[in-house]
């Protein structure tokens, strides 16, 4: 008895599977053919890193060294410097994409929203030096995911603009006055 039952069950399962195959066979395929078709990825997907600009068109990066500190594979290096007007900026900024693991910790650490990961992942190449990006390669002409934020308007230091002119600030204390 048992043998006949098993046989019946096996055949039914086979026919069920075949039915599914026949059903799908008649459908239009869903596979996307890369690179013929490039699927639009969500903005939050993590691939090639860029350096964005603030609403005034200035470099957002202040070379605070936080991204290079947090980077688990040490692929970011930079040298901070002072511009003539006192603004802090990276004299050079280098990301070694041959080493980058696209974890996005740098973006999380960035206090000025300068460093951002983009959905562009197509960077593979044979020459490893071509994967070492300098600042010129990284800088873009937009604000990335946030076009409003301007760190220096909130920083509260005189590196850009005078003291007391930034958001939510009093006028500088007059040292020569006794008035409260």
């Amino acid at each position, binding site marked *: 008895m048992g043998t006949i039952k098993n046989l019946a069950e096996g055949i039914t399962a086979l026919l069920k599977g075949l039915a599914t195959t026949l059903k799908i066979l008649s459908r239009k395929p869903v596979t996307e053919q890369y690179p013929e078709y490039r699927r639009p990825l969500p903005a939050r997907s993590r691939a090639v890193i860029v350096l964005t600009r603030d609403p005034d068109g200035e470099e957002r990066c202040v070379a605070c060294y936080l991204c290079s500190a947090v980077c688990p594979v040490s692929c970011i290096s930079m040298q901070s*410097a002072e511009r003539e007007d006192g603004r802090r900026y990276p004299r*050079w900024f280098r990301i070694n994409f041959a080493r980058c693991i696209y974890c996005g910790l740098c973006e999380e650490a960035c206090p000025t929203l300068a460093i951002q990961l983009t959905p562009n992942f197509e960077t593979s190449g044979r020459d490893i030096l071509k994967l070492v990006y300098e600042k010129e390669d990284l800088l873009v002409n937009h604000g990335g995911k946030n076009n409003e934020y301007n760190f220096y308007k909130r920083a*509260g230091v*005189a590196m850009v603009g005078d*003291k007391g002119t930034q958001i*939510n600030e*009093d006028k*500088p204390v007059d040292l020569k006055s006794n008035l409260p």
Partner: protein
Amino acid sequence: MPKLKIDGLEIEVERGTKVIEAAARLGIIIPRFCFHPGLGPVGACRVCAVKFEEGPVKGVQMSCMTDAQDGMVVSTTDEEAADFRKHVIEWLMMNHPHDCPVCDEGGHCLLQDLTVAGGHGIRRYLGKKRTYNDQYLGVFVQHEMNRCIQCWRCRRFYQEFAGYRDLGALQIAHHTYFGRATDGQLESPFSGNIIDICPTGVYTDKPSRFTGRRWDFERGPSLCIHCSLGCHIITSARYREMTRLEARFSESVNGYFICDRGRYGFYYTNHPERPRRARIRTEEVSLDQAIQTAAQKIIQINQKNGPKAIACLGSARSCVENQAMLIRFCRVQGWNEPTYFETPTMAKKVKRAVARLDEQLAVSMREIEKADFILAVGADPVNEAPMLALAMRQAFRNEATIVVIDPRPVFLPFEFEHLPVAPDDLEPCLTALIKGAVHRSAAEKMGEEALRFYDTAPAEYPDAPIKNRMVKITQKLRQSRYPVIICGTSIVRETTPDVAADSALLLRAARGRAGLFYLMSEANTFGAALLSSEEGSVMDVVESIEKGSVKGLMLVESDPFRSFPDYERLKQAVDKLDLFLVMDYLPSFAARLAHLFFPTQTLFEMETSFVNQEGRVQFATSAYRGGIPISQISAGGHPLRVFRRDIPGGESQPAWQILAKLANIISLPGREMFSLSKNELWSWIAKEYPIFANVPIADELPDDVRVHLAQGREKLFPSGGQIRSGGLSRENSTLELVMGDWTFGTEELSTYSKYLQQVEKEPCLFMSPKDASMLGLKDRERITLPLDKGRLEMELRIVDTMAPGVIVMPKHRQLAWQKIEKWPVKVAMGQIRK
């Protein structure tokens, strides 16, 4: 002694210890902003609140303002106290800007640490932030007042600890401002310390602005070699460049602070012109090739002219290893021993000082702070060894009397008695003070020699105004319980170090306790004096070259062109040489003239040791591997896009290793071979010089060890019967030229620092009003000073705080003073003209 319990741990501390310090001793670090162990408590920030559960004080109190008392039970983790501290941090942050990313303090900021520790993340107060305008504070310190949390550390250090007045608190209440009355360079040569002690980023280091974060630097414990004190420092290097230097705590040397010469003098190591390749004449070659060529040349000269035809000059800025290896090298080759001193007089003075400094008399800077009477002879602390002035100021704050006997216009940041007498009169002036304060019976107890010294030393100083002032000083000295004598070795006579030591002995016999502190010219002068057995000098070497008996000259980290009094004569002597071999890390004049040049490593690139002026052997570890800084190779742009295995410009080696390699090539078969191991070199040192036997060299960073020449070998009171009466030698027609030091501009290594060059003052000639009126000269006039080999032009400054009969000039970088034939220099009065 009060016994208390902190977080369940019991501790017994001395009376007067604050609870915050008692906790620190248990390893519990209570949060603090205003409290600093070097400055003491002030109770301004309120963040050190702890809960006192039992004992004489109850409730939440400030641990920095409360003395530890018996029966106290303290909790630092109590909820109420922790909540209090959290609120303190929140209100301190109310006006603090939102600028950590662009602030140089970020990463080692106390305020940042405690804000994170206190869990304050979101600003709740929505009112406006207070702002201040910043000031220009000069070359070293960057000001950003918005970051201030009013802890008062800067003002307390600047005014109370260091004694300078130009930076302080302005305004009141929540408008309190720390700065100067007007913009300008900070006047204090200790100004860099406010950067170290500021708990937030109000004062940041300007030369290293934005160069990196604390975690990026290669850091290591090292030593300052810009004077003989040997202060402890921490170095920071990044991208093959020394970027910053901070004070390192040292119990007995510098405490918590260092001076600006030490802090900003290190730029010689990054100097763009620093020679980093070996050279044969002007052609750059590999180090090995240069060593081979040098060996052949040396063998040639040795065969033709004998082993004594090559002379060696070392220097007192070299480490013990380099000095010792040079001596070992010369001994094995059978050459004359190397020379470390410029003049025979200098060699003799330093050797006498080293011989006389014994364990009982020698004091450290911390002990100087405890003295109640300080007598400085021929010493100008702020200019020769700045940190000594701070130590003396701490003694002054403890109500010590401070007397300086020196012809120069000495300035110290506190009140002191200055007895300006000519160099010849230093000794009689000193002995007159000692005789006034020490009874003859004390000398009698010390034996015949002491009595002879006491009896024959001049008892009175003939110059009336000075004599009158000495009466009060003698009285104070008579009452003192712990007098310390500080004796310089630069401008004094040959016998003065002995007279100072003998005076200290007499004081100790009379007062029960006394100290002796010598100042020396360079970082390792003491080491050079201990190691070298001959009293040769650069002068002797030059004479031998002129006579033709010396054909080759080897300079190991030495630049005689800077210090030899007669530049032209030295140049001609060098031109006569068959072999002129230079090892150095400075772009010195000698390095440019060298026939054969070897690049050596600086202190920051090798593991070394130095002996400071109190005989303390101290150690430094290397901060980085050397090489040309990335910023210099890539001219400010991004680093070169090439892979390479070696360090560009990293050929430099410690001078002692180059010497060892050279010796191994030229040594005859059968002679001992030198190893390149530092431990092997140290075992040789310990064998040849037993006083170094207990130096624990095997450790990674050994503790300091004090070495002193064996007790009882030296003859005490050797100058008995030799001290002339004061004031008699003065001829009215001549003025004695005294060459002094300045804080900035005279010390060899620091003169290569581009930042210190900016704060150097223009060299000038100091003259007393009496002499100036006799010559009809006015203050700030340009004058010409005739020297043996030419004239010097500079500004005249008339100051009434200096000795008449003397003119004082700095050995300044900007002044070509090397035109002197013979010391001491006497200038005929009429020859100084407008």
